């Protein structure tokens, strides 16, 4: 990528989250199958919750809460993946 071109990519990813409140709230394929075939109630709640249901806690505006949760996620995923790739690259270059 050209220098800092990744900023444009990150901005696009952040912008995509603005569409998230428009997403369908129907159950997804697996949830639908679990519901139809009576094993949905086997699902257990997570032992801890940080940003459950893609809604940032403490924000009462539903759409805004979803968008901000998405933006937080985009930044964390970018940072984690970038860091892992950077470390793998550095380790390889050091070894080489």
């Amino acid at each position: 990528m050209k220098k800092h071109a990744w900023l444009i990519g990150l901005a696009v990813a952040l912008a995509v989250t603005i569409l998230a409140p428009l997403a369908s709230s129907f159950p997804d394929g697996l949830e639908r199958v679990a519901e139809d075939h009576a094993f949905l109630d086997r699902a257990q709640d997570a032992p801890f919750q940080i940003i459950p249901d893609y809604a940032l806690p403490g924000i009462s505006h539903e759409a805004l809460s979803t968008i901000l949760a998405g933006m937080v996620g985009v930044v964390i995923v970018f940072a984690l993946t970038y860091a892992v790739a950077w470390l793998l690259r550095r380790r390889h270059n050091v070894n080489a």
Partner: protein
Amino acid sequence: MHIPDGFLSTATSAVAWVGAAGGVGYSINRVKTELTERKVPLIGVTAAFIFAAQMLNFPVAGGTSGHLLGGALAMILLGPFAGSIAITAVLIIQALIFQDGGLLALGANVLNMAVVGVFSAWLVYRGLLRVLGSRKWSTTIAAFAASWASVVLASLAASVELALSGTSPWGVVLPAMGSVHMIIGVGEGLITVGVVSFLRATRPDLLALQATPIRGGVS
């Protein structure tokens, strides 16, 4: 198709963790030689974009929705090894921060979506490109087919885990999961083709980054 905790038996979860670790470990081992300076940020951006796009559930038949898994998209942009790592990162954050997909089930979700999803897309994509040659529309057809196949095969992997766990009988869960994901896979194909076509028009240099690993093949 993020499996929550409670759907899988301990034994099935454990086997899935081993499979996931093997697949991702192999990817980490293989990716090192292809990590150019330009590719590192592209991996981060691709994972971030797929995370965002996964939030956009689209309705399919009968009060059901689907969303992008992104395995084929990541594979086309990054190659299978970096692509598999990118999807794994997305799944880890979804499980740890967003409580989407279980913690014990994370191994199964990584196995299904980051390993089966990405590598099945890769096999279909490579195979079709070889058959179709370098015609104008061959990458579009290959991208669509790879996306569709990756979703269906990932859903079948999930079905096998559910059946092995005794959660749902084989004869019920395989056709039910397979059929709904054959529809969702069409959405996956359309989104992947749309994004790849847009990038080909605007940033063909990005798609060229992975040209060697994909066409060069692994033996």
